[in-house]
């Protein structure tokens, strides 16, 4: 083997897997992503190619900044559902700055940030976790002696776009809850010259983050957003629309107190405070933690954690939504005009979504088998 061949082989090994079990898992991941993004099965090989191209031609640089946060979105990101996610992430992005995970500290970390900003200027996806305090000159959050505001100011000219991950970055979240002691604001209140994509949720569902990256790899542009700057593919439906307990709502079967007869039967949690009818998110369809469960399935009402100002608007949590002061509306784009869901016609249950994913995954498996057969034929 000559030197060039060695080099080629080394490079090969960092690409998405080309055969075997890992290839099948990789294609299944692509299948799941296609289902999540609402794309037809024909897109599965295209997604695979896009990820492979990204891995080969250069992964986009990602700078992940944390301000007034709890690191819950970072933790969430590490729990992504797709198989071999660590590998998929390694293929999709270059995580060039992330204080929770990076090796260097202090001045070496700051040097690293400056180097990345210079080298990939204009191409950097800047993820922000946590809100930004503005009161008293921003003294409530400093990193390396600089305020969150000053750091954003330095990074903004070099960004391709900002991704506000979690409700704190997207809408101000918990720090902004009444009485907002630190003057906390959202990323969109500070960043004015670059696109901002909001991925609310406390935390954001990790598959939403993954799907956003896949979308970018596939189309080379950012996804369509609603008026609250949320990707339409993830925030277009209410929790209530796809809730597995929805038939009980329609049948008037409610849990009236925790652990009562209805609770043991899995009845609807509306009367113990479920905010599913007024909350736009993917929990009831995509679920959490590799399909393990989601809050309503596990018996607790939805807190409405992906909605703007939910800490003030959705509380008290155990009072049902009408008591919390909502009108009957149905437009996802309009803050305040959120629907109670009484009029929602959709009864697409989790089963339907699951069927789509399973079907996409089966398609991906057949694709993998086909590839393997072709390989054998070539041999």
């Amino acid at each position: 083997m000559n030197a060039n061949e060695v080099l080629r082989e080394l490079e090969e090994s960092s690409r998405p897997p080309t055969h075997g079990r890992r290839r099948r898992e990789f294609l299944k991941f692509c299948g799941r992503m296609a289902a999540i993004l609402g794309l037809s099965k024909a897109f599965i090989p295209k997604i695979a190619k896009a990820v492979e191209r990204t891995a080969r031609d250069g992964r986009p640089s990602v700078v992940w900044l944390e301000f007034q946060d709890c690191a819950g979105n970072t933790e969430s990101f590490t729990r992504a559902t797709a198989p071999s996610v660590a590998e998929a992430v390694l293929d999709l992005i270059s995580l060039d700055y992330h204080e929770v995970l990076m090796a260097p500290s202090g001045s070496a970390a700051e040097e690293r940030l400056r180097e990345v900003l210079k080298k990939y200027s204009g191409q950097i996806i800047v993820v922000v976790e946590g809100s930004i305090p503005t009161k008293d000159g921003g003294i409530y959050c400093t990193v390396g002696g600089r305020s969150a505001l000053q750091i954003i100011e330095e990074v903004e000219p070099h960004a391709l776009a900002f991704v506000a991950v979690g409700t704190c970055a997207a809408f101000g979240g918990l720090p902004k809850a009444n009485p907002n002691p630190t003057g906390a604001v959202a990323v969109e209140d500070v960043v004015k010259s670059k696109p901002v994509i909001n991925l609310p949720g406390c935390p954001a569902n990790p598959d939403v983050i993954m799907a956003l990256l896949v979308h970018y790899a596939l189309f080379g542009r950012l996804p369509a957003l609603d008026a609250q700057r949320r990707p339409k593919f993830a925030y277009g439906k209410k929790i209530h629309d796809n809730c597995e307990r929805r038939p009980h709502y329609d049948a008037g079967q409610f849990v009236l107190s925790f652990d009562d007869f209805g609770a043991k039967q899995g009845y609807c949690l509306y009367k113990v405070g479920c905010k599913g009818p007024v909350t736009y998110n993917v929990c009831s369809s995509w679920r959490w933690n590799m399909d393990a469960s989601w809050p309503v399935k596990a018996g607790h009402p939805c807190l409405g954690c992906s909605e703007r100002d939910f800490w003030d608007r959705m509380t008290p949590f155990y009072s049902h939504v009408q008591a919390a002061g909502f009108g009957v509306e149905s437009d996802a784009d309009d803050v305040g005009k959120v629907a109670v869901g009484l009029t929602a016609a959709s009864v697409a249950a989790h089963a339907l979504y699951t069927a789509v994913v399973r079907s996409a995954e089966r398609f991906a498996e057949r694709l993998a088998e086909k590839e393997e057969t072709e390989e054998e034929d070539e041999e």
Partner: protein
Amino acid sequence: MRVVVDPITRIEGHLRIEAEVANGRITKAYSSCTMWRGIERIVQGRDPRDVWAFTQRICGVCTTVHAFASIRAVEDALSIEVPRLAQALRNLIIAVQYIHDHVMHFYHLHALDWVNVPNALKADPNEASRIARSLSDWPNSSPGYFRELLEKLKSFVQKGRLGIFANGYWDHPAYRLPPEVDLIAVAHYLEALQWQRHIARIHALLGGKNPHPNFLVGGIPISVNLDGPAVLNAQVLAEIKAHIDQAVDFVRKVYVPDLLAIASFYKDWAGYGAGVGNFLVYGEFPEGQLYDLDTLFIPRGAILNWDLGRIYDVDTKDPEQIRETVAHSWYRYSRGEDEGLHPYEGETEPNYTGPEPPYDYLNVSEKYSWLKSPRWRGHPMEVGPLARTLVAYAKGHRAFKSKVDYALSKLNVPLKAMFSTLGRTAARGIESWVIAEDYLPDLYSRIISLINAGDTSTFNREGWDPKSWPKEAKGMGFMEAPRGALGHWVRIEDGKVANYQVIAPTTWNAGPRDAKGQPGPYEAALEGTPIYDPKKPLEILRTIHSFDPCLACAAHIYDPEGNEIIEVKVQ
């Protein structure tokens, strides 16, 4: 000279260390938290049954602990008893959090202080395989397995896209592992990243999602119905059991062997990072009600001045025992700042006197942190796995004792080696091993026998209705979070939160000096630490990471009664 490390990375939150270095050693260190949100102020006036969700968001890493501490405080205030099964399921959630947190801390937050990633490129995969097989019978240990990883790493490095591994202190001579051990550790770094997703599923199965599962004052939200499709049934229990087995396996066959193997190359670190020598433990895993202290699996107690011969009793409600001071914290006390205040009587008002950002140095002779300085009977106290391990060891806890003795004999070091950076890191692994082997399996059996005996209540309805509450009530919820003793103190008036206070583990460990000038545990632990190159403060990271900092937990504020924000209305 003054060495500043900010940001301290591979922790949760925003931490800054300033250290005076003379003749290659740290003479004085100053620990500063640089972020504050004011969550205790935000929960004022809210429904006490809601507060767990607010305080849970103090931290997304130890995502269960502030929820449970809050729920326990409210239950204590309102005298709500928790059903046996609910208590056991809570304990399961907490035990899983310990293991999840400790493993991720070791591999993803702490390992890179000891493991040199580029050095792993020099490894011989056959030799790595031989070493791995000598450590345990973990199946991922073939030469082919290590060869494949090695090639992936090489191409990663070759393309110059090192991502999170870029610009580390890799040429620092304090890295001492052979390349093969580095390679094994990198392999397990990646495996642990995959593994933890499965373990976290237990939280999702019982609480809906992780991070930030859902809990409930008076019990837990999920109901048991073995024949029901939608709740805690036989299938869910079987899934939980499978994940417990996975957790136990990884701790036994990967985490503990790696820990001991790596520690054997760094025994000199048993000589650094001793800290304050005082240890505080509230205790954890009640089998009965929370205050049935005799039923706690991890016992309560305090140790002073490294003396394991005497364990002091701890009472979290005694105003003479726990007090917080603010002499060097960006807060103001109305009655002077020489005296500390018990959380029930405490008061806090932010009072930032630090430099205007951007700044180069803090004025450490004045106030310099968003953390207060909690003290137990006037002493700074270390909390966390080392404190728990020492108190349990001194009290003769069978499981802790046998596993501590095993680790010490394996490393061939005396008991006093535990009082160090190395001991602190080892204690975390020992504790995980105790919980995995000596607690989790028994706990699971207890859950099954309760269900089999028909004891399936998961929620106590009495006390849920605010009409049943007294006009005024106060309560204290304690817990042992993975990072140490955690307390929430709540005062309820007319059905609403009138006052709320948190002292988090990292507040104990990372707090600044008090009015008497006594340094906090981080500050004390750094004194005497050698610094090879002030531009590459690897040694500071080793000791600070050995505490597993969680700064979002630690920085908080509560509000004195009646201290409302005054809103000025423009006429």
